[in-house]
């Protein structure tokens, strides 16, 4: 695609073909948890993409490579699914050929480590119940499908700053809400918190009791 002076028309023309670009991020436990698509689709297509991706990724063996050639649904062979599997969680990025495969694997690792820091030993349930927080963290890392920041410390600083702002805004009025929320959380059947992402081995032994 031409982008320099004098070729602007052709650039415009090609834009419409550029349907799928950049990342989808899907975080699966056994059911879908977090799902971000940076190229707006209608809901049906999105759900189809998720189902297909989940289907593709979950049936793969543990010891095969972390890359999958994309099907037609995710934009043909130009695009690839790159995933990492942590216990019951799959982190799947769908990227086009301009991204480095191993670079994205590193990025997933950064993402997971950042989640681990922000949630203090992240577990599957954190992701399930705090989708909004996951989104906020991801927004500091990936913006509109493009990688914004790969430095974990920088991401955490920004996320913390925003959370602090949120708290100060809630002020006194927010306190009762937080208390209620804490009480509600206590009702939860014991939340397993023994997930250690640092060495990438997430164990969620109590999960079945969590239905």
């Amino acid at each position: 695609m031409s982008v320099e002076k004098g070729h602007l028309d052709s650039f415009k023309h090609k834009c419409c073909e550029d349907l799928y670009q950049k990342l989808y991020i899907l975080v699966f436990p056994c059911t879908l948890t977090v799902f971000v698509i940076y190229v707006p689709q209608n809901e049906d297509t999105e759900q189809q993409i998720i189902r297909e991706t989940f289907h593709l990724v979950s049936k793969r063996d543990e010891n095969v490579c972390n890359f999958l050639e994309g099907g037609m649904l995710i934009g043909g062979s130009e695009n690839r699914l790159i995933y990492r599997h942590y216990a019951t969680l799959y982190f799947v990025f769908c990227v086009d050929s301009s991204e480095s495969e191993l670079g994205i694997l590193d990025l997933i690792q950064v993402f997971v480590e950042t989640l681990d820091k922000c949630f203090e030993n992240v577990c599957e349930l954190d992701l399930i119940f705090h989708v909004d927080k996951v989104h906020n963290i991801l927004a500091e890392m990936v913006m509109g499908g493009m990688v914004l920041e790969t430095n974990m410390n920088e991401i955490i600083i920004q996320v913390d700053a925003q959370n602090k702002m949120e708290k100060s805004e809630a002020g006194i009025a927010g306190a009762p809400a937080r208390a209620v929320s804490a009480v509600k959380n206590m009702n939860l059947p014991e939340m397993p918190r023994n997930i250690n992402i640092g060495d990438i081995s997430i164990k969620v032994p109590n999960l079945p009791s969590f239905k």
Partner: protein
Amino acid sequence: MALKIVKGSIDRMFDKNLQDLVRGIRNHKEDEAKYISTCIDEIKQELKQDNIAVKSNAVCKLTYLQMLGYDVSWAAFNIVEVMSSSKFTYKRIGYLAASQCFHESTDVIMLTTNQIRKDLSSPNQYDTGVALTGLSCFVTPDLARDLANDIMTLMSHTKPYIRKKAVLIMYKVFLKYPESLRPAFPRMKEKLEDPDPGVQSAAVNVICELARRNPKNYLSLAPLFFKLMTSSTNNWVLIKIIKLFGALTPLEPRLGKKLIEPLTNLIHSTSAMSLLYECVNTVIAVVWLSVLKYLGLLAMSKILKTHPKSVQSHKDLILQCLDDKDESIRLRALDLLYGMVSKKNLMEIVKKLMLHVDKAEGTTYRDELLTKIIDICSQSNYQYITNFEWYISILVELTRLEGTRHGHLIASQMLDVAIRVKAIRAFAVAQMATLLDNAHLLTGNTQHSGICEVLYAAAWICGEFSEHLEDPMATLEAMLRPKVATLPGHIQAVYVQNAAKLFSTVLCGQEGAPADSKVAQETSQLLIDRLPVFVQSDNLEVQERASCILQLVKYIQKLQQKDVEVAEEVTALFAGELNPVAPKAQKKVPVPEGLDLDAWINEPPSGSESEDEGRKTKGKAVFAREESRHTKPRYTEVDEKELAKRREVRKAEQANNPFYIKASPSSQKVRTASSPNRQLVLWMPMSDQYVKLEEERRQKNKADRKKDKKKRREKGRQRRGDSGPESEEDITPAHMVDIVTEEMPENALPINSSLTSRCITDVCDIQGNLHDGSQVVVSVIFENKCDSFIKSMEFNVMDSLNSKLQRPEGAGPHDSLTVPFHLPPGISSEARFIFSVQSIVMPQKLKGTLTFIVKDSSTHEKLDFKLHFTCTSYLITTPCYSDAYAKLLESGDLKGSSLKLEGINQPFHHLLARICFHHHFSVVERIDSCASMYSRSIQGHHVCLLVKTADQTVSIDAKCDEPGLLRNVLDEIKLTFSQC
């Protein structure tokens, strides 16, 4: 009022928040849809309230539902409301919802323009941040156009957090509103050198994305990126830059060289696998392309050894490598081609190589090409050549190369092919005659170049096979031109000798027609005129031959003048055909009796070793003699090594000698697979145009062969069944002949044959002749398996010293016998041939050929085979009475030998029947598990066997007055049982 607020917040506490919704959905697995629809109703209620906190909570839940696949576009306006809240908490929720739910077609987006602009210029950097993040997801062309300027301003914001987001979102803006690219680009370029690594990284991201689409326009940024690559420590940025260089270098080759150093540094220093990978990737793509090509070819040659098929599919690629400007790559590719040829692609590959020969600069490479062409063609005994005429013309074409060192190689190939492929001779001779005629072209200016060696071959071929020459006179004249005297001596010698051969041919041709005797005399005169030049040669060989032949011709001329017919006598000088001899032929000549090849002819000179020992044993002179006896075997040991070494040398010599037929592994394989009553379907190969047909046929043929084998086995079983174990003596001796195709004939057929398929089955029985002690009768069953009529079959066997085919009186020793019948398709018939055998002690293999004409074709087709005379076939079943048998054993004239067979689990009488059947014995006496057997050879040798069996073990004690014969018979018995 304050109370109201507090009350509102307390109400809110018990509203469902996002966590409650998630929990609820998880608790309502069965009626999820129903539960969610009630939730949506609740949300709708909440959205109707004025309280922004309640609204934002509802929007937050909607975002989650949207993710689950529910349509929430109806709430778009409420999302905008939440977005425009002054509080960051709600604003963030609103923008998140917008980024998830808004599409380009969402109409409320146009209401957001002002709100977003306000947020972008907000003093709170996080307000700006979430606005940018949200916008990046739902930016439309309109938004891009309206906000481009605002975002461009933000690119120079004081906060790096804003700058990096603004830089990154510009890519989206460019996509939606390309007009913004030109004004924004200078600033974007500036950001590549931003002090903040995050901003830098974002700028690199954007520019790499743009450059990926059109690398050419970004070449000018290469120095900047180069600087970044050497200074940046951010892996992500480095990966992006390296990927960008990967796209740029094909456009600007000079970049490649510059990149080597920083890339190598990175490869050595980085610990990040991903960066390393991308470095290597780029290195592969651009920098060391040629190195990789070379390594790739090298790897392929390794793969070729184990998986030839997989490499063959890359033939075109490898042929392309021949065009490479790097010589070592071309040589590698050549090596690969050698292993890749097959019958199908040989011609194509050689044709391509010939093109390269024409183009090639530098003699070294051209010579390499030449040797490779010849190697490729001649490998595995010309296995891949389907058309020898083509090969000869290739060779002739190669002679046109100037200044090659490999003239002798071409020459030896010409000789080899012309001698071994009879069908090609006429063509080869014609080509060689032309070559001789144009000899001046070869020798013209490059007198000392190796190519004139070719003339050596040409002259010899023309002389030896002069009967194929169309105009021997012209060739003779060409060979006697004065210029020949400038050729190297050994070539001149061949010229002179073969001129004489040609002379005899000319005489032969002329004297048939008496009117032309004048021409014959002119020929003599020509020789007499021209030969003196050679007589004066400074080369002894040339001189000697020339003067000898000159005198001969002078004498012939005298006779001619007296009108004496001399042609026949002259021809006799060169009579006899030169036959190729297999390298192992020597083995087939039986060692004369009494000759011990291992024995010393003269005692070996005493080596230093024995001297040492002699010194040691000096004191004990008494034992000296004994000592020396001990050392003797040691000498033979050394000698064996020496022999093996010599054998190797001899093999190497033979391999280089065109007059030897190299042993072909395939034929050996066939030979070892011999079985009783075996037969082989021999089948004829086709002209190369039918390569495909050939394959099909081959498969069909395989199937046929299997069928036939079965048939034969059944037949054999039947016979055995008929005779039964009781009537052992009635079993008729039947024995087999191995007919083995040789390697050569397969492709040696003339290519102009348009026949498709011919198969002939030969099955032979060899049987001794009772009436004559030195005769063996071989019955051959010919079966025509093709669809055409076969006629003029001629059977010929190459006689060995020991065995000779008996031919009618007056026939020469090499004449073939006519088979007295024709074969219509599908018919088989039997012919008997008598062989005279001198020694029957050793088994023998005779090589033979069957020539025949398939109807509608004028050419003779040839089928090579081997006759295997086993020692058993010299035995004749002769009944013997037990008392005579006992007398025989007592006489003491017989020498003994024994054999043990293990693991035989057939009944004893079957075992006896087998020996009787296959080895022509008769049972003299049988007591329980013990039997005595007897047979007699055609030369009257007695063979006695005592067969005992116990526990699957059969021991055979045998006696015979000829130990050699006995040994071989026992070996054959062993073979029979090892095959069952």
